[in-house]
């Protein structure tokens, strides 16, 4: 995936935001912004801030990651925005629900830098495929 893409990291735990940011930087993605829950993230997206990828937790106060995903998919202006869920929610029906709502990738916590890289590469490949 293009290393210059703009990434929005959404998690209510400040430590996890920092870890994701850290690992993304390791992988060469340095253009990141953080939001501490779905509501804040949604406000940033609605305010017209441009992002290429949202990396979001699911379980958050205010607005969950799933609701954020639904909002994004319901907004035509954000049609090209890719969403990677990074969450401790690991039940089968939850994964299916996220998929049905148009998630682009699903990572279960705790995760490794290698998993993060693999999912980002996969999302990048598919985006290229879709554009071709």
């Amino acid at each position, binding site marked *: 995936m293009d290393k210059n893409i703009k990434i929005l990291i959404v*998690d209510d*735990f*400040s*430590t*996890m935001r*920092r*870890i994701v940011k*850290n*690992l993304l930087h*390791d992988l060469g993605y340095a253009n990141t912004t953080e939001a501490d829950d779905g509501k804040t993230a949604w406000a940033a997206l609605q305010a017209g801030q441009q992002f290429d990828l949202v990396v979001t937790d*699911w*379980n*958050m*106060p*205010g607005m*969950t990651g799933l*609701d954020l995903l639904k909002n994004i998919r319901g907004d035509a202006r954000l049609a090209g925005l890719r969403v990677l869920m990074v969450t*401790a*929610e*690991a*039940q*089968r029906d*939850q*994964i*299916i629900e996220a*998929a049905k709502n148009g998630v682009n990738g*699903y*990572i*279960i*916590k*705790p*995760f*490794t*830098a290698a*998993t993060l890289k693999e999912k980002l590469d996969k999302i990048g490949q598919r985006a290229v495929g879709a554009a071709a």
Partner: protein
Amino acid sequence: MNSAPQPLPERPDRAELYAGVARSLHQGLRDLGLDRRLAQVADADMPDACQRLDYVVKLTEDAAHRALDLVDEGRAVADSLGDVQLHLRRLESHTPVVHELRSAGEAVNDAETRLRAMLTALAQAQEYQDLSGQVIRRVIGLVRNAEGALLDLLGSGVAREAAPVAGSAQDALPGPDTTGTKASDQDDADRLLASLGF
């Protein structure tokens, strides 16, 4: 056998029924001397337990941030090792001991690579704080709910806002799997998504 069916007793009002049960339960607790103990549990012990759990979350959060600060500092050290390699390369044309200089450069390069891998692993290891924090917050929510229910039962409880830490949408989520039985791991998730055409 052929006796006429007994007429059903008149259905008492549900609220009245519950109030009656609560009264006799309360009286029973009092007779057993349990009411004071339970009041102590609800009024003091449970809030105290929640406070201690909050403290644990805070402590692990601070520790994880401290570790991540050190990761950032370590990155700066790794960057300076990169600079050292550049300097060594520049010196190559000014020295008769090129071979030694090159192997020193390789050693520094190797150290830098290993250091960066360690820092990545160190940052990754801090994920425990998010997962343990989620579990502890959930337990705090459970304790608060039990506290509210107990106070209601004991009659001392003007159902205080049982201030659950999590919103309702959040409460419904299973969260981190602590049993190691029900949840999917990353491979399961990948297979499931692949079967759905991902």
